């Protein structure tokens, strides 16, 4: 129970700091910390396979890709509200941000209210039934074989699409 609160608090605080940072590099590094905490939660949920691929794929591959792009673009700091030239644009942007925060708080309160009202008394986890890596692998290649193969096609399409989108147009560059 203590570990749940430690990992949960770490995940929530790191995620809050991710969206509070002006510098994208700190955001990416904090998100890796948040994923580490989530991986601990997966261990508590007796899902070691998910915990490991959370670290390897998310923290190791996807976040490194983000970090690579941030450094490649030499990403500028986000402009603050004061940098916006006209007064009208500044007030409209502040209004949009305030509306977004209000919407998020309303959604959060509603979610927490609904979940604590209906999920509180029931829902204790049944003992045993650890999904081992071999059981997951067997399921992936039997019942979920077709989605698994479709996933490989999706990755191929994403790879080709990323190359085409990020390539410099040789005709325009001239060399």
């Amino acid at each position: 129970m203590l570990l749940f609160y430690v990992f949960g608090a770490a995940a929530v605080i790191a995620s809050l700091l991710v969206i509070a940072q002006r510098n994208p590099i700190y955001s990416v590094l904090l998100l890796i910390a948040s994923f580490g905490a989530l991986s601990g939660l997966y261990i508590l949920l007796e899902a070691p396979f998910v915990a490991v691929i959370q670290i390897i794929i998310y923290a190791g591959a996807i976040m490194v890709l983000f970090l690579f792009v941030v450094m490649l673009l030499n990403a500028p700091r986000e402009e603050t509200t004061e940098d916006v030239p006209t007064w009208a644009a500044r007030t409209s942007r502040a209004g949009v941000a305030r509306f977004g925060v209000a919407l998020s708080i309303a959604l959060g309160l509603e979610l927490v209210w609904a979940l604590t009202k209906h999920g509180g008394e029931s829902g204790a986890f049944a003992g045993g039934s650890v999904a081992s890596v071999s059981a997951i692998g067997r399921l992936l290649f039997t019942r979920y074989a077709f989605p698994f193969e479709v996933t490989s096609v999706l990755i191929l399409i994403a790879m080709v699409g990323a190359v085409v989108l990020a390539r410099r147009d040789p005709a325009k560059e001239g060399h």
Partner: protein
Amino acid sequence: MPRLGDYLVLSGLLFVIGAAGVMVRRNLITILLSIEIMLNAVNLSFVAFGRALGSADGQIIVFFVMTVAAAEAAVGLAIVIGLFRHRESLNPDSFTNLKW
């Protein structure tokens, strides 16, 4: 022991943080990171439900969500690179034209 409801509340909090990031921030990279936060919140609830129902299907759908997230990150970052080349900016407000 923490119960299913505790994990669902935590997952809801993380999802709300991600949604707030998408709506409040003005940086394409931070918006993509917020989407990743939301995907992870949903993954957490999938694993918690799978644990509560005693089945491995929750973990398998997390595997698929992760591969789709990887594809989404690759294509999204390629689009961000293309946009940055045109405007030297990551602010979504500077991409309001359909064609330039």
